[in-house]
């Protein structure tokens, strides 16, 4: 956060204002307003940046949820792994960005596939309950393994294009924030094309609507579940890679990211693709504004309160239909 925008500065100015010559009062009033709006803008920029990551997590949730009807509690661990593996490849092994980026996505995708093959598929009495427990176990295992490998300290990653902030109407925008938003847009565009234009994407969508009917027309449902895990792991990895230069990354970030991503998911409407994006951005904004204007200590609580409120008031979310939360055969 820009240091010159700290709250309270404006207050002291105005308390001195009465003792000053009258002609100075007016310009100062304007200064104050500018600093407050730019402060808001600053929070909004931060919110959209982190909200993009929540949106990516939420999209990942939806991809698996639509096909399997289970919530993947390891979704946040994919983001954490994306960040830490990228740090390992780029900072420790000095592999250039262009190669380490896809390599990281590949590694995390393999982890996602392994999650399905080793933890979900072998379950003898598959039910949504046992699948969720398995993903909780897997999430815990991945987190433990990450602590074992990387230790408890957070790691930094060099930003893609320098750390010189860009001035934007009084707010300072990190170039990396633009990358984050850019990658969210890229993920959305690629996924939309994938789901609408390719046979594989259409098969995945068919599975989401009705697995039994899909298998009747020759779609291999098991393969589609595998694909959904791979896809959401890859999306999570991208989120982790792009956010690490801004917020660092450590082994125990996964659970919190998963909860906030889920909050975004529920806010937008469980299973809704565009709902996930809208929900993610709103959660990010609420969190950033809440931390800046109300209390930074309770920063993490805002998103979770939103989750509880949405469950209370409109469980179908903003863009979801009531059908999704009611009729899915849990």
């Amino acid at each position, binding site marked *: 956060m820009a240091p010159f925008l700290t709250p309270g500065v404006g207050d002291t100015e105005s308390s001195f204002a009465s003792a000053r010559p009258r002609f100075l009062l007016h310009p100062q009033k304007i200064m104050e307003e500018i600093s407050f709006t730019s402060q808001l803008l600053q929070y909004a920029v931060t919110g959209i940046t982190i909200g993009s990551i929540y949106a990516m997590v939420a999209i990942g949730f939806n991809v698996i949820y639509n096909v399997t*009807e*289970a*919530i993947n*509690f390891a979704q946040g661990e994919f983001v954490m792994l994306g960040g830490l593996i990228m740090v390992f490849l780029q900072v420790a092994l000095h592999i250039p960005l262009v190669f380490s980026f896809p390599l990281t996505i590949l590694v995390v995708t393999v982890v996602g596939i392994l999650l399905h093959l*080793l*933890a979900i598929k*072998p*379950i*003898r*009495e598959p039910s*949504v*309950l*046992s699948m*969720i*427990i*398995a993903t*909780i*176990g*897997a*999430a*815990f*295992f*991945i*987190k*433990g*393994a990450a*602590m*074992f490998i990387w230790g408890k300290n957070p790691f930094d990653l060099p930003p893609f294009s320098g750390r010189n902030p860009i001035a934007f109407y009084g707010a300072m925008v990190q170039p990396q924030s633009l990358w984050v938003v850019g990658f969210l847009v890229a993920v959305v565009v690629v996924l939309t094309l994938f789901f609408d234009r390719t046979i594989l994407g259409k098969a995945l969508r068919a599975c989401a609507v009705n697995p039994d009917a899909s298998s009747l027309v020759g779609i291999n449902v098991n393969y589609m579940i595998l694909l959904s895990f791979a896809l959401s792991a890859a999306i999570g990895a991208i989120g982790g890679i792009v956010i690490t230069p801004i917020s660092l990354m450590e082994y125990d970030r996964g*659970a*919190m990211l998963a*909860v906030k991503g*889920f*909050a975004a998911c*529920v806010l937008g409407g*469980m299973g809704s693709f565009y709902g996930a994006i809208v929900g993610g951005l709103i959660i990010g904004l609420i969190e950033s504004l809440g931390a800046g204007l109300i209390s930074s*200590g*309770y920063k*993490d*609580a805002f998103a*979770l*309160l939103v*989750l*509880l409120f949405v*469950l*209370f008031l409109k*469980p179908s979310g903003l863009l979801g239909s009531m059908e999704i*939360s*009611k*009729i*899915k*055969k*849990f």
Partner: protein
Amino acid sequence: MDRLPFKKNRDILHLTGFGLGLLLFPLLARHVSILSHYMDVMVFVGIYSIMTIGLCLLMGYAGQISLGHAAFFGLGAYISGVVTTKYGINPWLCLLMGMIVSSVIAVIIGTPSLKLRGHYLAMATLAFCIIITIVFNENVELTGGPDGLAFIQGLSLMGYPLDSIAKYYYLVWSFVLVTLLLSLNVIRSRVGRAMRSIHGSELAASAMGVNISKYKIYVFVVSAGMASVAGSLYAHYLNFLSPASFDLFVSIKLLIMIILGGMHSIWGAVVGAVLITFLNYEWLHYFEEAEGMIYGLIILVIIIFLPGGLVSVPGKVRKILTR
């Protein structure tokens, strides 16, 4: 229906045997020096058992996961701790107060998330658990923040202080026995049958006129209340609280206890509590760094290879032998 009395008798048999074993353990421990060390751990086992029995009702019989039980545990503990140290109110009243507060919160969280199909409760309680940890850490003047809350007074029963481990052991385990008795009664009653039918098929249960969400909320509230009682007992036994004893990790450990013991059996909940508490307090020090991985692996191995938990092993062995 005709098998019910038989089952009731078997329950009473199990309970008496279990109670006798518990009575004898301290006597045995007094004479065997290796065991005497375990009295302390057994108190914690009792405290965790109260929670796992409640959670088992929720998971095994209502088919829902709660990741927020560490929060209810912490709520009970902190209400007991803070109110007795700051306001000097009778600890037993605080225990009741914690129970009421936890139940009310459980209603608030449970009502919206349990009315929906699916596992919204798991995420809502996960969120609640994280919020509560933040609250414990941030309210420094009330809870002592991350440094913890010390000098919580011990419990006394009718003017008679429970000042030794053995006395507390008997107190905690009598709570466990009462919880067991209550839960077994619930399971064998109309409510229990309704709950099992929900777990079997929600659609069929609701077609038979079972009010699904009402029963789910009921079980969730009861189990939250139990966790809160366990928290109060914990606070007065340890005389010291810190937020780390009530974070998400503890919720996951409770989950592991249930899965390891067997989520469809109340007795499994106790077995799991014994094993994981010993693992946690006694044996896991050797693997400090790999602790998380080991817990994760336990969950995966059990859910994949032994979905019925450890209590299903005797039945399986018998099946193999009689074949």
